[in-house]
């Protein structure tokens, strides 16, 4: 089959690889109809995530049709149309039982590796390096889905792919990001990052009753999308200082809660400040660029909650622990537990509360994946989200 494989820094290639096979009784094989490139795939593309091997198949946002099931899968039949969550969860361990699916205790066969980095090992993820299990990803024609009796969500007949594809990752991730911000009705929320996850975080914040959502970015077209599609107020941080703007917009208080939807490759407008983390990251003295996170923490109103939705991998310098402690801030975070949001969010889509396809700006064939990565990485042609069709 054809699949997008990681070929080194800033390089992906679409190659012929063997078709996936059933390895365990609870597996299923899915023929992929639609798959997307994620912002976190860019961290792999840019070479910041360790434990990648040349030839790894990428992709963790995908949906398609069941073509084969193992003996232990009875809830799915060949021909069923499903969307598959990116975290791989067994459904039986303590973590899964308490709804923390991305922390599954059983699904990472390289748990020993992950434990060294993070203390304990979270669960496996499709197409995201050996640290999360070395599972082949879904930017391909077919994919093997473990524990298929737990995670895949059957898509209602007649529902187009575009509307449900993002239940695999970015919609629940934005939603959980907003949920982690502990928003009360009437409150003001600031969101750093207007990429796809940021767009969904903004939309979700309104669904949760936020009165005002302030979106922060430097790309005018993304800020425009936030204004037009979600109704957010916006700050372009290259045109006005964030701190002053936020204070003015909130009568000096600061936003009640903050969401970091930027993650480890964030950007700073001041070249000197940008250089600090950028150089340290390039020389691997530091694994993260935490500008957005630092700003979110420093601007959040005392007693508020900072929700970290963006992806981080390791250790960050100059973390404002003093601000957190002295001003009673709460930090909430987590790799999204997609499985627990599938049904509630599908219901929202069915009710017409939201149409997630609004983030799609580019559609390409799977074979054009290389161009897709470049367009997405460099934000060419007002790119927000690239969807690939095998």
């Amino acid at each position, binding site marked *: 089959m054809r*699949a997008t494989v990681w070929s080194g820094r800033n390089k992906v290639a679409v190659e012929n690889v063997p078709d996936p096979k059933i390895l365990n009784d609870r597996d299923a094989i899915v023929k992929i109809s639609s798959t997307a490139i994620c912002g976190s795939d860019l961290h792999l593309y840019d070479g910041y995530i360790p434990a990648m091997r040349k030839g790894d198949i990428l992709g963790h946002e995908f949906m398609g049709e069941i073509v084969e099931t193992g003996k232990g899968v009875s809830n799915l039949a060949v021909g069923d149309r499903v969307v598959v969550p990116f975290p791989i969860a*067994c459904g039986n*361990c*303590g973590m899964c039982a308490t709804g923390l699916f991305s922390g599954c205790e059983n699904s990472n*066969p390289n748990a*020993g590796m992950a434990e060294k980095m993070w203390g304990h090992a979270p669960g496996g993820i499709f*197409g995201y390096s050996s640290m999360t299990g070395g599972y082949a*990803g879904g930017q391909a024609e077919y994919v093997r889905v473990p524990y298929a009796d737990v995670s895949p969500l059957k898509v209602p007949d007649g529902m187009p792919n575009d509307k449900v594809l993002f239940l695999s990752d970015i919609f629940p991730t934005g939603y959980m990001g907003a949920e982690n911000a502990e928003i009360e009705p009437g409150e003001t929320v600031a969101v750093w990052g207007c990429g796809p996850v940021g767009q969904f975080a903004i939309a979700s914040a309104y669904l949760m009753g936020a009165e005002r959502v302030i979106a922060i970015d430097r790309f005018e077209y993304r800020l425009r999308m936030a204004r037009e599609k979600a109704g957010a107020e916006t700050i372009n941080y290259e045109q006005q200082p964030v701190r002053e703007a936020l204070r003015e917009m909130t009568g000096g208080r600061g936003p009640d809660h903050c969401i970091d939807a930027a993650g480890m490759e964030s950007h700073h407008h001041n070249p000197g400040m940008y250089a600090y983390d950028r150089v340290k990251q390039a020389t691997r003295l530091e694994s993260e660029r935490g500008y957005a996170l630092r700003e979110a923490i420093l601007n959040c109103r005392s007693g508020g909650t900072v929700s970290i939705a963006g992806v981080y991998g390791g250790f960050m310098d100059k973390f404002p622990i003093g601000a957190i402690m002295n001003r009673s801030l709460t930090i909430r975070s987590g790799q999204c537990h997609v499985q627990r949001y599938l049904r509630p969010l599908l219901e929202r889509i069915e009710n017409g509360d939201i149409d997630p396809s609004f983030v799609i700006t580019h559609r390409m064939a799977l074979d054009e994946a290389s161009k897709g990565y470049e367009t997405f990485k460099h934000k060419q042609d007002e790119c927000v989200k690239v969807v690939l069709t095998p």
Partner: protein
Amino acid sequence: MTAISKTTNGGPPRENLAKGMGVFSFALGIPQILAPGRVNRLIGVRDDATTRMWMRAVGTREIAAGVGIFSQRRPTPWLWARVAGDTMDLALLATALRTKSKRQGRTLAATGAVAGAFAADLVDSLKLSRGEAPAAAQEEPEAKGMHVKAAITVRRDRDELYAFWRDFERFPEFMAHLEEVSSTGPDRSHWRARGPLGMDVEWDAEITEDVPGERISWRSLEGAKVDNSGSVRFVPAPRDQGTEVHIELQYDIPGGSVGSLIAKLFGEEPALQIKDDLRRFKQIVETGEIARSDGAPEGQVNKRQLKPRPARPLGDEELATTSAGGTS
């Protein structure tokens, strides 16, 4: 999720002290041999062929002391050699002072420095001689073997886990190094394992303790090439989380410490192996199968984590060579 601890023999306590003195010896000896004239002038003695010869001799002695400290198993005699050398240096310097050398000030300073070094060397040599373990890194592992502990929490009640564990014949399902375990009597079993370097090891074992739902202990019988024993305890985990499984293993590694080193090199370090084994045990009990990925098709194996496959499906030939069923 798993906790692990192990103890082995060894551990040099005063290594740094001796090392420091060894470094000092080299730092002194090298210029004394390579630039004796400079050193003569530095310490204010007359610089001629004779004094340079002495300086080189002294330098050679220093280097020898340094080599002795770093390379010998018991450096203490070499540290005393330093003390003797310092005494000799002081005597030489005293002679230089009496003959009123050109730069008395410098010679006095050098004498002071050597006196200081002498005092330090004496004190350190006394410390090290006073019954502390040899200061340089020693390798005197007694073949006492390895003691390994690990724990994992499984979401099942203790009776179920006890019943699984009591059936020793199931061990190869999750213990990667075991090929086969067969029951040879009510409390007896025959075990066959893959040792390091591909040598198979076999032994008989008996159950020494069996408390249903709580504890099982076993021990290898006379004649086992690898004396080993183990025990597993089942403890209810707090707050309905299931059962804590605590395992303890004790065994002699074939080949003594050398075998242990090789075992580590090949990624079959017993302490890590038991962690993998417990993870696979938990997977089988909780999910019914061992988690396998394209990058790690055998499931949880420490060796594989050192050298993962690419995350892409295996070809038919590769699949045939990788064992199905989870153990490698």
